[in-house]
């Protein structure tokens, strides 16, 4: 036995190796925050108008929809699943919420009830997707892809090609309101973030999501009802999409299917760039907040720099692949799909 009480020098080397590997993992886990700070610093110098009070408010405002979407998606990706239903479902919820409040088309005026019903619709569709995925044993990729197409169809059907304009005072104040300098819609998004954080850290549901994502065998042995958890995860994702749809409708004051367009892939990118791998088990909602900030700031920064429209997409692609490449494990035996 050597002085540390290890059975041989080899065992001590092993212990040191473990400590080193832990340190590396911790640095890699912090990479997204580093990238975020780097982007903010770089853009503050290079892009004039970036670090102004108004632009920060703009960024926070534009953050609301990708952040809410990424909250639901984080839990889905933690289970190594996917939810593509956002495009159609977000459009559907956005369309019907405007039709139900005071608007230019229908004579309904259900006020706050409209928001509840619309978000509940998102929740229900999420549950349906979860049930089909779990009991139909069908890949979540295809189920949610088909669900998106179905809900997009119902969205356009709801206003039959003539979108309604909102005349609901509360929505107008919400879309322009500020509280402590932060736009009200962003407060709603932060509320969803807070709920997601509590769900992840404080509830048994959150624990079981990590357990299933990390090691489904142990979760099964401990007698957890895996199917129920999976359906709840898709339900929560549906609810988040519902909220995002309502926020989208409030922001543009109109109810049309375009509210959901191009919202899913930026949200998935935010979750992955934030540090939740697509194979699940690691990461969480805090990581996704950082990811959502990165994605929003890249988009905002490129416009402030007046970058030519043609190459904006390319620059976004390069930044995202660099961010992920920095925080990826490269051991020989590491399997990346």
């Amino acid at each position, binding site marked *: 036995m050597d002085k540390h*009480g*290890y059975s041989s020098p080899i065992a001590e080397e092993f212990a040191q190796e473990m*400590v080193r590997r832990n340190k590396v993992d911790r640095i890699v886990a912090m990479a997204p925050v580093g990238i975020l700070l780097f982007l903010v610093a770089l853009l503050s110098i290079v892009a004039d108008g970036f670090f102004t009070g108004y632009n920060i408010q703009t960024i926070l405002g534009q953050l609301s929809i990708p952040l809410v979407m990424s909250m639901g998606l984080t839990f889905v990706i933690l289970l190594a699943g996917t939810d593509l239903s956002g495009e159609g479902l977000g459009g559907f919820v956005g369309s019907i919420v405007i039709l139900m409040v005071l608007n230019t088309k229908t004579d309904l005026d259900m006020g706050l009830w409209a928001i509840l019903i619309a978000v509940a619709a998102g929740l229900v569709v999420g549950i349906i997707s979860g049930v089909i995925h779990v009991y139909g044993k069908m890949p979540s990729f295809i189920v949610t892809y088909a669900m998106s197409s179905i809900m997009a169809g119902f969205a356009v059907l709801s206003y039959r090609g003539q979108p309604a304009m909102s005349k609901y005072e509360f929505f107008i104040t919400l879309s322009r309101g500020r509280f402590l300098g932060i736009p009200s819609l962003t407060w709603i998004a932060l509320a969803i973030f807070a709920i997601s954080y509590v769900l992840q850290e404080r509830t048994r549901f959150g*624990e079981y999501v990590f357990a299933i994502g990390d090691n489904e065998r142990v979760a099964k042995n401990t007698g957890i009802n895996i199917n129920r958890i999976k359906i709840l995860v898709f339900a929560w994702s549906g609810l988040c999409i519902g909220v995002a749809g309502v926020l989208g409708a409030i922001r543009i004051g109109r109810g049309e299917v375009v509210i959901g367009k191009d919202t899913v892939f930026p949200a998935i990118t935010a979750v992955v760039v934030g540090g939740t791998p697509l194979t699940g088990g690691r990461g969480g909602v805090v990581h996704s907040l950082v990811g959502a900030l990165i994605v929003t700031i890249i988009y905002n920064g490129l416009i402030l720099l007046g970058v030519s429209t043609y190459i904006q997409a390319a620059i976004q692609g390069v930044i995202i692949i660099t961010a992920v490449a920095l925080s990826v494990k490269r051991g020989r035996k590491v399997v990346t799909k």
Partner: protein
Amino acid sequence: MDTHPVLFSAKGIVKQYPGTTALNEVELEVRPGEVVGLVGENGAGKSTLLKLIMGIEQPTSGAMTMRGDPYTPKTPIEANGMGVGMVFQEQSLIQNLTVGQNIFFGLEKPYLKYGFVDKRRMYEDARRILAEIGIKRIKPERRIRDLDFATRQMVEIAKVFSVVTRRSASGNLILLDEPTSVLNDDEVKNLFANMRRMTERGNSVIFVSHRLDEVLEISNRIYVFKDGRNAALLDEADADEAILYEKMVGKTASGEYYKVDRQAVPGDEVLLEATDLGMRGFFGGVNLKVRRGEVVGICGSIGSGKEDLCAVVCGDESYSSGKLVVNGKVRRFSSPRAALKAGVLSIPKERREEGIIAEASIHENIAMSNYKAFKRFGLVSTALEREHAKRHVAELSIKTPGITQSVGFLSGGNAQKVVFARILSSDADVLVLNHPTRGVDVGAKEEIYSLIRDITASGKGMILLGDTLDECIGLASRIIVMKDGLVTHELDAPAGAKPEQLEIVKYMV
């Protein structure tokens, strides 16, 4: 205090897997407040018995009783409910959750208020449980992935102690399967102190370990298993390492079983040579030569570094020090494929995860290591594959409805034969066999031994990690003994003068 004379008993326990009998009429008894040691070689059935007690699997026949009444657990949760808990060999903790969350994983009900977990109370109880077994320095808020291996093991043990004593503070049974392999000296002392604290309160422990000195130090009574049968039951007073070795190994299997007569005399051409080979944190200073027709047996217990040595030789890992020379050239393999090109190929230990592609058919699996041999005009011809596979299925008498059968369908023994057929079809001349007969029925074992003899007779060299010490000695012409990453002994094992197991065991353990 449950004062039933026998806490736990198992009688006439038989456990059969397709083609192999892991346990054969085994019986074991545990009295309240006692530590029962359980020793035996790899594959003697120790872990299988623990799985039956934990309800992970059900015995084929035989009966178990707990505190006098019949005990037939179907799931680990049922076993926990009856006061039986087990620390698994491979980690069963959730990396991303905290220590507190892991200890109470699946048992959050008392801390739940409308689905919300009262973390403060949970962490307080966790801190109490950890303190109870003498662990002060682990904070329940820390995530498992931030802890080192030894601490994780301590958390596992704390978790089992807490799960087991939920029913009542005494009359429980705790199963420990090789808990000390990652612990250092004072961590082992701490574990023993906790075991004694548990037994003083009327609970019992079954302690499985390959470190005989530890077993002797802590156990009241020691069962010795051999080949799935009771070999001996010794009281702590009249047991010592020598007797245990002797009971563990029993009589060396007959030379005929290992086809010793057909053991080839090694040629002098050196196929593979390692000088001062080392891999930081796993093993170091290994020197070995593999000549044509030679079988180099490597013996050592779990964590001795023998498996990591195999991984380096077959290109699955890279080495950090020393030199590896294959067919005269210094090599540093970037992948198993590079090793195969240089003529080195391995039979992995975990057959299902590492040796076969379960969905692929038999003939596809066999051809996978040497597609060149089955190509016609650049395309792999299925006809050639099938014809070659038919020959191997006949030669190795693989029991299968047809060669297009997915290998996932076959029994352990037959799947292993398919792996051997793949090795034979490849033109590798240095083979690394990692526990080739693990989980294979006795009949198939003998066929594999004669197969090994044929292979060496055809001039190939071999590094063998024997499933049992007996097998190592029987097959190998040269033996290297490793312990905790270092080579502790080296000796020849010619056909005529096979060394005694006792001679080797003392360097292993």
